[in-house]
């Protein structure tokens, strides 16, 4: 790879790459992010390579290995360009048939995605309801780009935003562009990015300024940052380069959690390629602008996603938040001005620069512009990453894109924003998803986790789960956060075991409010949200646990009993499975559960084929 010495050289490289590309070439696209690989994408890649070589198709049919496309439910999936054919849940044998079909430019109808509503197969990816409802600005780029090939990125208008910024000659105009787009921080708090940049640009610092990409994504059930890091690492590098030029910073740090090995690998490759090509380092593209990015791996503390804790972690100290002010933009890494933006925020910067602020602001609502990626998980048919314009209703995401509940029971609530967020009940699904509405409803946008819950989810149990998570993940500095969460967990444990009292419920509410009020950092201030929001919307369930000693969802073990109903055929499977030996009965006769010995593990329900076991 030869170093590019000027913007003209970059321009000619880009046009050469674009000219060499034939959009009509048939390409098999296999998403192989961590999720894809886990479900078998590596085997598909191996088989496809072998088939293409054996059949001598390497010139006609191309293979592109990309990051995650977002439709987890259908993994491992295959996309065929330029037709746009989508094959879900492909295995090795299906893959061989798909390669043959692509070679002949035909489609295997029986392998296509089948629409649940009509029962008819859908060929094109864009027609599938899951994709149809989305506005895929960032995720669509994951489909087009092989993350370990920088030329592939450049060919798809990559680094054009950087060139546009560098040729503008005026850093403040770049800041104004980002400000004009109305982009707000995608990490959760929603601070206007342009304003943040402006504050940094105004700072005078003899020792340099820093930019940080916060890739310490730790919310349970959230993985949109990982998919961008794995699928399109160059977009983050480009965003940071633009940010560096705009704010006068010349050092960047990507703080990525060590649990994302593939993301780290792809980032390392991308950084090396940028260095080799002269896009990163000293005198970028001969313009005199210098910017370098280093990679720091987080050691696994959830609290290090909080910006001041993250800075301390980068400095090599214990990840512990500190008092703001002074804000990082005044005193950040080693005391130098620093700004921290989330992965998705940085990935949006090239989109704004190439498309223009006005174009960006057209998507979404006033004050909440652009798209946001949510990871839709839980009791829903189509789990996966969905990218939607801001301001869309929860109902649209859950019922249209998500396809409704996965089981028979109704969706009861969605939990947004991870452990810092809250639960929004089904009655409020007409709520538009934007920073302000969600905060008003007692939850937060957060980084974009969205967990769907149905009637088999106990809200006390949900609150207990998050308290258990935070009990370990609070840094422990603030007494009220450390001890307050432990005490909330203790009370919730009592309630779920049927030992709770009404006084305890009041105490729980009082304590939750005080924890929210008196802690220092974002983690503590939002730690009570799971408790407060479930209390606000599902107080009935708490009261049922207390007064009737009953768990309506059938989750809290101490409050439920298992019994066998008339559906039982006497197959004896359950009695053989029961680890406690609590089920008795002779063959072909209805069995009985000894409720004293029963440990309510649920093993019998899992094995019973006749719906013969009831939980009450």
């Amino acid at each position: 790879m030869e170093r590019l010495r000027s913007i003209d050289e970059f321009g000619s490289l880009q046009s050469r790459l674009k000219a060499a590309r034939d959009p009509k070439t048939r390409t098999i696209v296999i998403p192989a992010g961590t999720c894809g690989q886990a479900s078998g994408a590596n085997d598909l890649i191996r088989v496809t390579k072998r088939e293409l070589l054996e059949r001598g198709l390497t010139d006609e049919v191309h293979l592109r290995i990309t990051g995650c496309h977002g439709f987890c439910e259908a993994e491992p999936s295959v996309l065929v360009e330029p037709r746009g054919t989508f094959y879900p849940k492909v295995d090795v044998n299906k893959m061989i048939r798909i390669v043959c079909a692509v070679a002949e430019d035909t489609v295997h109808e029986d392998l296509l995605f089948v629409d649940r509503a009509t029962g008819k197969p859908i060929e094109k990816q864009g027609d599938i309801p899951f994709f149809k409802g989305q506005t895929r600005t960032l995720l669509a780029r994951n489909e087009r780009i092989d993350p370990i090939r920088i030329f592939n990125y450049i060919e798809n208008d990559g680094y054009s935003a950087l060139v546009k910024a560098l040729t503008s000659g005026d850093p403040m105009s770049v800041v104004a562009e980002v400000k004009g787009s109305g982009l707000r921080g995608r990490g959760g708090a929603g601070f206007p990015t342009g304003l943040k940049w402006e504050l940094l640009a105004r700072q005078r610092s003899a020792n340099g300024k820093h930019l940080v990409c916060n890739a310490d994504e730790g919310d349970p059930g959230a993985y949109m940052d990982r998919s961008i890091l794995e699928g399109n690492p160059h977009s983050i590098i480009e965003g940071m380069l633009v940010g560096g030029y705009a704010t006068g910073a010349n050092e960047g740090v990507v703080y990525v959690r060590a649990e994302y090995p593939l993301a780290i690998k792809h980032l390392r490759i991308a950084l090396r390629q940028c260095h080799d090509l002269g896009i990163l380092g000293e005198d970028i593209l001969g313009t005199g602008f210098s910017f370098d990015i280093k990679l720091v791996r987080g050691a696994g503390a959830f609290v290090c996603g909080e910006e001041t804790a993250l800075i301390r972690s980068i400095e090599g100290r214990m990840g512990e938040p500190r008092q703001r002010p002074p804000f990082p933009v005044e005193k950040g890494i080693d005391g130098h001005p620093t700004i921290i933006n989330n992965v998705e925020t940085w990935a949006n910067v090239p989109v704004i620069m190439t498309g223009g602020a006005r174009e960006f602001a057209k998507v979404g609502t006033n004050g909440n512009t652009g798209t946001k990626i949510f990871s839709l998980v839980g009791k829903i048919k189509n789990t996966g990453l969905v990218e939607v314009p801001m301001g869309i209703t929860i109902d649209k995401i859950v019922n249209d894109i998500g396809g409704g509940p996965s089981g028979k029971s109704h969706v009861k609530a969605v939990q947004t924003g991870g452990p810092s967020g809250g639960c929004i009940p089904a009655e409020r699904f007409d709520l538009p998803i934007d920073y302000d509405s969600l905060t008003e409803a007692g939850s937060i946008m957060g980084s974009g986790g969205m967990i769907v819950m149905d009637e088999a989810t106990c809200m006390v149990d949900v609150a207990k789960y998050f308290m258990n998570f935070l009990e370990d993940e609070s840094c422990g500095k603030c007494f009220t956060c450390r001890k307050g969460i432990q005490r909330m967990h203790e009370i919730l444990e009592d309630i779920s075991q049927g030992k709770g009292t009404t006084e305890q419920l009041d105490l729980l509410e009082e304590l939750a409010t005080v924890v929210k009020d008196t802690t220092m950092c974002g983690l503590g201030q939002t730690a009570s949200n799971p408790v407060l929001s479930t209390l606000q919307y599902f107080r009935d369930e708490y009261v049922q646990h207390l007064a009737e000693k009953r768990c309506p969802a059938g989750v809290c073990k101490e409050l439920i009993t298992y019994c066998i109903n008339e559906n039982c055929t006497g197959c004896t499977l359950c009695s053989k499975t029961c680890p406690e030996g609590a089920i008795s009965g002779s063959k072909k006769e209805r069995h009985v559960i000894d409720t004293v010995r029963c440990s309510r593990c649920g093993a019998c329900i899992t094995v019973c084929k006749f719906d013969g076991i009831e939980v009450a």
Partner: protein
Amino acid sequence: MITLTVNGLEVAMEEGTTVLEAARFLGFPIPTLCHMDGLSPYGACRLCVVEIGEGPKAKLVSSCTYPVQEGQKVRTASSRVVRARKIILELLLASCPQSKVIQDLASAHDVRQQRFRQEHEDCILCGLCVRMCEQQMMAKAIGFRGRGKTRSIGTPFDIKSEECRLCGGCIYVCPACQLRCTYTEPDKAICGGCANLSPPCVEKEPFDDMMCYMTPCVACEIEKH
């Protein structure tokens, strides 16, 4: 100078002073536990919370770490503050009821009940000992480790620290563990100072350079017996 109002009284403070200093300058009492003159503010116990700002933007901040800002409006005893303080003291009493310091604070703030499950912990992780060791004794023998519910204070790898001069400063400042962290129960000791039981003033040369805070002094006690 920065002008702010504390409970309606205007006061001008030097830049860089904290809200706690401003309030104390005016004579408003704010209870503290993890704060000590001569040690850097830490903000762990949250007892010193005050309310700043107005309307929906009003929030509670720890006054020991929050810097004074121009036009700031501080309330040191609003109902929100008082309620928070009471719950914090209740939590403290629930964890560490044997501490005289905590008992006195609870009594002074009219905390008459303790509704949580009673525990008997030796440490509230206020960090006074860690800061004392680092900032006044220049030793850095002890520090925090772990996070969340497993956070604790100790020496690296739980072995007696080479840095520890057995000065006893950590014991002197501790609001919770005065009772247990003496030589009487060496196996439960934090810093290892008392565990060693070798009289510090005799062992270390020259003794004149050292400050000894150990009360009762290990060496003197041993000599007595």
